[in-house]
């Protein structure tokens, strides 16, 4: 391998990126757009959930509790109901997602035994929302009186939802505000870098084939590994720049706490970039048209990263088979690492396993990419 040739290719590639609008948009504008879109658009938080109330007691106490619900930003009371039939109808017609029922002996039990129960009927056809809503209801009730319990009942969801008596004392770690944005943004960073990295490099070899420059390039003594290194170096720099941008944007715009070490972030981001850029390069070498290569690049990065990396949907809640598949999704390691770095402030030693997995991935991809394209036309 000769540094002179690697440098010649890197310089050429840099000039080409600078003069190619499409590459510039992907490299500079896309991370910004995605940060905004995904940062704001994807939120697992529930706010102002439509709620119906069925107050069977109608006392001062029950009204005070309902005021708590009204005051909470999680709920909006949309109707006051008079019986269970109306409650069922309200849930069936999607007028509300949960119904809060206050028993007729609410105040009495409260004063007699110092504890009472409020019933929550939840539409569990969207069991994620139902779960979260019940959790929020619990916290509202807790706020009203320390030992009120919520008796939750879900409709249409999993059996686990039925008759869930909840009365727990919670202490949440790492994401104290239970703000799902804190949980999602680190994953968004991984998603953006996977997409941008693979998209950019997916064009780099196919462009040479499409423009006919490849034939001349392979007639020179340049080695495939030199082509790979020379082409990936500028994209590595761009990827790092994008990573810095995403990190700064996450911390200073979305106020996601970053508690880990910058060195660990730099190291793991480098590994992830090698994998992502290498995958894009492999696609580019295999598919000789730019359009085809970029479509495949989106397919192999965006889909697995958004669905199977655990960036928004927890891996341990997936079916066992799918969990097995996630080990192949390289973004899962980076998402794990990023979440730990951002929220837990873990050090490299805590992340040994995902870092090692990513290191192996990077080695394999780099090895394959180095021999990806043959200097032959047949």
């Amino acid at each position, binding site marked *: 391998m000769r540094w002179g*040739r690697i*440098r010649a*290719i890197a310089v050429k590639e840099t000039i080409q990126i600078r003069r190619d609008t499409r590459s510039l948009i992907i490299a500079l504008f896309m991370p910004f757009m995605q940060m905004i879109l995904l940062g704001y658009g994807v939120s697992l938080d529930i706010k102002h959930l439509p709620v119906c109330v069925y107050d069977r007691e109608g006392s001062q106490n029950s009204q005070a509790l309902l005021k708590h619900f009204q005051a909470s930003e999680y709920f909006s009371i949309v109707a006051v109901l008079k019986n269970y039939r109306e409650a069922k109808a309200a849930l069936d017609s999607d007028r509300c997602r949960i119904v809060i029922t206050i028993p007729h002996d609410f105040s009495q039990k409260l004063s007699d035994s110092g504890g009472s129960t409020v019933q929550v009927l939840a539409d569990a056809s969207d069991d994620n929302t139902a779960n979260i809503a019940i959790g929020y209801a619990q916290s509202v009730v807790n706020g009203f009186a320390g030992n009120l319990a919520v008796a939750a009942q879900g409709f249409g969801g999993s059996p686990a939802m039925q008759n869930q008596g909840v009365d727990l004392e919670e202490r949440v770690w790492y994401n104290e505000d239970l703000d799902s944005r804190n949980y999602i943004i680190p994953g968004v960073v991984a998603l953006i870098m996977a997409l941008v990295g693979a998209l950019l490099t997916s064009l780099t070899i196919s462009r040479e084939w499409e423009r006919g420059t490849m*034939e001349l390039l392979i007639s020179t*003594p340049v080695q495939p590994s030199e082509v790979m290194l020379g082409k990936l170096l500028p994209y590595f720099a761009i990827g790092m720049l994008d990573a810095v941008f995403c990190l700064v944007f996450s911390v200073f715009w979305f106020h996601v706490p970053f508690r880990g070490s910058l060195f660990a972030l730099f190291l793991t981001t480098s590994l992830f970039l090698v994998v992502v850029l290498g995958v894009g390069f492999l696609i580019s070498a295999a598919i000789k048209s730019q359009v085809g290569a970029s479509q495949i690049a989106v397919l192999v990065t965006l889909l697995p990263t958004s669905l199977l990396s655990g960036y928004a949907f927890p891996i341990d809640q997936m079916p066992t088979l799918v969990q097995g598949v996630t080990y192949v999704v390289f973004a899962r390691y980076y998402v794990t690492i990023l979440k730990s770095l951002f929220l837990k402030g873990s050090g490299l030693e805590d992340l040994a396993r995902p870092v090692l997995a990513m290191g192996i991935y990077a080695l394999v991809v780099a090895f394959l990419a180095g021999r990806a394209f043959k*200097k*032959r036309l047949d």
Partner: protein
Amino acid sequence: MTETAPKEPAIEVENLVKRFGDFTAVDHVSFQVERGTIIGFLGPNGAGKSTIIRMLCGLLSPSEGHAIVSGIDVAKDPETVREHIGYMSQKFSLYGDLTVMENLRFFGGIYRVPKTILPERIRFAVTMAGLEGREDFLVSTLAGGWKQRLALGCAILHRPPILFLDEPTSGVDPESRRRFWDLIHSLSEDGVTIVVSTHYMDEAEYCNTIALINRGRLLALESPTTLKKRDLGGHLLSVECPDIGKAISLLEGQPGILDAAAFGNAVHLLVDPAKISCRDLEGRLTTAGIPVARIGSIEPSIDDIFVRMVGENSPQGGAG
């Protein structure tokens, strides 16, 4: 310039075959090229010229046979061969979104031309291509002749002893073509071996050796002068008249007429002078309602030889 052993030919090709599926693009071709000579591959499009050149550059692997370039077997060690050659592909393949200088610097880097001599080599290439003052122009904005000379400039930055030029002059104006051949000649005088393909028959005159290629086969390998002295087996006449197609169909296959082919605005006839004369022909054409503007015997050109040889070699009997 890398030196090869004094008497060793620059290129030795033995029974080279290239098949693409059922199609045989190159069919048992053998030849040698002496160092410092210009060999021209002549033939129609699709004859197999580019395929041979690509095999010699190590871009395609031969299905059968051997190709030794600069003393090295291309199939075994294509990388070493690539250090000894310069290549201009059929399609223009410099980077259009790079400037003249950026392209030259890129290929200088790829061929590892030492930093101390690169500026001088680049200056030479710019001057040779006539691109002084246009160093910072994007290559995509240059006209064909300049692009082509720049491509040559890039191909010789590392002073390769052997140059492969695949249809370098196609789609370039006649003035630029002539200028390009001047460059090729001056390179050849410096001892560079040049393999050039073309479908312009008139360019054959510029070569030391001509390889006539048709349907993947080598029909002839000799100097233009020898080639033109080939006995066509008859007397060559040129007939200028309107409606050439009608004239050919009228005369083809008639006794005494060995071959008839269209050449621009004339019909070239290969005749047996014992059986038919100019006057007979003129009479026949005039009777058929084709006025003859001029008729006379001519010296065979490479074109005539080629058409005749293709006629003899192909089962269909036509020029491919």
